[in-house]
């Protein structure tokens, strides 16, 4: 384990940003989001959860996919560049880091989504182990260790000192570039990190959702859950907004649309929500007519459909953003409880 030798995070950030674009949690208009670091930004490493998750950096809310030049009967396709500057994202929590695996299974499965793939290839993920989990957190339910995130590099902050460990080749290579700011941590310091991690895990075990049970959500019971009478009660107050979807690190449904710039057509994609009424609307009808069906779809996807297609991996990382943000306080934790075997 290494440690960062200065107590000024800005020293580290300015060193990184001298090499690559650096994203950190910054405060914008009173809310914390991943933004490009600069001396003048208000960095908020203390914030446990950004409003939008870190997925925004790899799968942005809106992105141009290609352009078309239309001339008479002719069409010319303008394909975006195949290159991208490497970037660093610092401060990714264990839940968001796990969400990348969930997203990878979708976007990197054949046929590969090159837009996502290029960003994943270009991004170096530096995680921050959690020190102060809150009541909406339940990452442990999905087997995630908040003190051991899955990034290229993992950092722990103990008593104001930043400890550092590279976890992948990419992480090793980047660590080497920062060697002048890093030194070996002592055995005592490593013990302090381990002790803090244990303390954090003990806190997590005490949180209200720590004991949620998800073992029962297995593919063979898909129809049983689909037909559960509980949905009628659970969806009742749902406003049909997209808050849960858009703050969720694993929601990845998208829309593809064309925009006429006046000089050509831009085809862009943007996040979409299965909660929206026109999500599945066709000229000939609509398979999910009611909000009950749309609500059910979102949770069936996360707890059954996605795991059925991905070796049992759930499409929820227990980040708790939906718990905090749903206008009517309905969320996946309540759904798990209501439908679960308990």
């Amino acid at each position, binding site marked *: 384990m290494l440690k960062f030798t200065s107590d000024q995070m800005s020293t580290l950030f300015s060193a990184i940003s001298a090499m690559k674009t650096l994203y950190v949690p910054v405060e914008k208009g009173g809310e914390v989001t991943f933004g490009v670091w600069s001396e003048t930004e208000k960095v908020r490493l203390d914030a446990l959860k950004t409003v939008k998750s870190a997925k925004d950096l790899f799968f942005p809310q809106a992105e141009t996919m290609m352009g078309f030049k239309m001339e008479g009967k002719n069409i010319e396709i303008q394909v975006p560049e195949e290159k991208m500057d*490497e970037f660093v994202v610092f401060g990714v929590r264990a839940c968001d880091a796990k969400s990348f695996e969930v997203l990878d299974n979708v976007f990197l499965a054949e046929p590969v989504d*090159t837009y996502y793939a*290029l960003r994943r290839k270009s991004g170096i993920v530096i995680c921050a182990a959690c020190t102060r989990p809150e009541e909406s957190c339940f990452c442990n339910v999905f087997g995630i260790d908040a003190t051991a995130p899955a990034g290229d590099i993992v950092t722990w902050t103990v008593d104001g000192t930043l400890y550092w460990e590279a976890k992948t080749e990419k992480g090793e290579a980047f660590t080497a570039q920062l060697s002048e700011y890093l030194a070996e941590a002592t055995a005592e310091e490593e013990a302090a990190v381990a002790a803090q991690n244990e303390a954090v895990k003990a806190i997590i075990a005490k949180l209200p959702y720590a004991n949620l049970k998800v073992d029962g959500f297995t593919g063979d019971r898909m129809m049983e859950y689909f037909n559960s009478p509980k949905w009628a009660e659970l969806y009742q107050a749902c406003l049909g907004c997209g808050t849960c979807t858009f703050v969720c690190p694993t929601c990845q449904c998208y829309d593809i649309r064309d925009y006429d710039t006046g000089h050509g057509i831009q085809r862009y994609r943007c996040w979409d929500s299965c909660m929206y009424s026109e999500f599945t609307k*066709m000229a000939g009808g609509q398979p999910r007519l009611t909000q009950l069906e749309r609500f059910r779809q979102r949770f069936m996807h996360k707890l059954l459909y996605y795991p059925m297609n991905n070796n049992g991996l759930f499409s929820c990382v227990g980040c708790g953003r939906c718990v905090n943000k749903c206008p009517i306080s309905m969320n996946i934790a309540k759904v798990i409880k209501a439908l679960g075997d308990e």
Partner: protein
Amino acid sequence: MMSEITREDMHIPKIGIVREIIQETPDVKTFRINAPDGSPLFDHMPGQCAMISVPGVGEGMFSIPSSPTNREYMEFSIKMCGCLTSWLHSMEPGQMVTVRGPLGNHFPVENEFIGKDILVIGGGIGIAPVRSVVKYMLDHRQDYGRIDVVYGARSKEDLVYYEEMSKEWPKVPNTYVHLTIDREQEGWDGPVGFVPNYVKELNFPTDKTVIMCGPPIMIKFTLAGLMELGFQKEQVYTTMELRMKCGIGKCGRCNIGSKYVCKDGPVFRFDELDELPNEY
């Protein structure tokens, strides 16, 4: 430092040129499309689909009714029903469109269907996706048993591929075409009535493999009729359509339970559909 990838992405379409347009019925046209250099756009199997787009107008999923054995062009038979399809109907030959494909699975013509007697049932524009199978089987005639095609439309004018089905297909040995229209009309001396009833009347032996495509109401009643005749759901294939955007199982809107119509479908057997939520 820059990272690089090769931009081979199924979101990015190919350019196709519409070479020929055939008015099939008052509201259905068949478009023959190939690449600008005259080569096929891509290889496909019967039942697979492609996304056709006119940028700025829209993009839609269409089945490929031509046979993979046709190397000159790919055909799309498209009914006018919305913004994009109206635009396509107003096109003239030489127009470029964008095409993405092949998308989805296909009918098991190279394994399960081999040696079987095949019953193809179509209604309206629903004949388009299954025509590819028929054409493929006719081109590999020795691999399959007896082929029956039952096809119905509102009127004689609404029968897509009428010439081909009434004149060419019946000439092929052991191949039978049964056409029906909804109501009596002048110049039609064939059977009259809806497809489900006609299928029951024809009273096929139950050892056939069935391929069915048409409006939901036709599918529902024909399937019930087949069950009455003693067919099993395991014998009946259909092809589904839901709203699609990406066509590659990523954008998340065309799922039926854990299956994506664009990737795991569009071809399903009814016993498979029975195991999935009824959201289609």
